[in-house]
């Protein structure tokens, strides 16, 4: 389905994940974050940068990896993206829904 975000039509899945990472922009990310009730700060963007890097390098994400990234620890990750950090951060990052169980 299509959704207008940051003034452009963006293709998203039913759960609101971007279908095409190339359609992502920081404005789109911020709008998704707002939907999740998150106001983006520098701290948030650092995590998003890291997640997008991992995605570009085709590394599957886990909470453990984020915790070891040096960008943020697990407690901080949960504090920045409350209620499902890996899913929310992935959605804001414009990457597909994570398939990891850990």
């Amino acid at each position, binding site marked *: 389905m299509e959704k207008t975000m940051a003034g452009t039509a963006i293709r998203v899945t039913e759960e609101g994940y971007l279908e095409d990472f190339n359609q992502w922009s920081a404005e789109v990310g911020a709008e998704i974050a707002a939907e999740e009730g998150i106001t983006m700060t520098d701290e948030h963007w650092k995590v998003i940068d890291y997640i997008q890097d991992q995605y570009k390098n085709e590394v599957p994400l886990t*909470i453990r990896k984020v915790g070891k990234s040096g960008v943020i620890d697990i*407690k901080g990750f*949960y504090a920045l993206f409350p209620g*499902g*950090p890996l899913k929310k951060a992935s959605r804001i990052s414009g990457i597909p829904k994570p398939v990891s169980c*850990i």
Partner: protein
Amino acid sequence: MELLQPVKEEKTKKEAKINKVMIIVSKATLENVYASFILANGARMEGIESELFFTFFGLEAITKSKLEHLHVATVGNPAMHIPTMLGGLPGMEAFATTMMKKEMEKLDIPPVDEFLEILSASGVKMWACKLAMDMFHLEEKDLIDDLEGVLTVGDFYNRAHGEGTHLMFI
């Protein structure tokens, strides 16, 4: 003759959401401990509250001197696909455990000590069962520092009042 119309399911029921899972860990075999840890962690990843209650042999998973030495059960487990007599030979448990740990590392599943730290950092509350501690002569200092506290069964149930709370026994 009139054809019967398919009965449409009425949507009268409110969508039952899971708000909290409370998992009772009663065994210390590696496979059971991991099952409960992954369920507890997976709940937090979905924004669901989760708590672990360690009782009986499950206490070994949070006993400082024991938690790094948990083993896979090789006897009485048909899914191991080795004869039970062989599974009982010295060293078999250790061997099967090493093999399993190798596979888990490939999937980025952390070892028990690190997993406990992740659970705590993720907001999973971990409790020890008072009666089982008395039975095994354990004191709080023997258990991990991240432990929330020691509970009776009654205390544990009292934490399960909220709507959408589910209890699991592993």
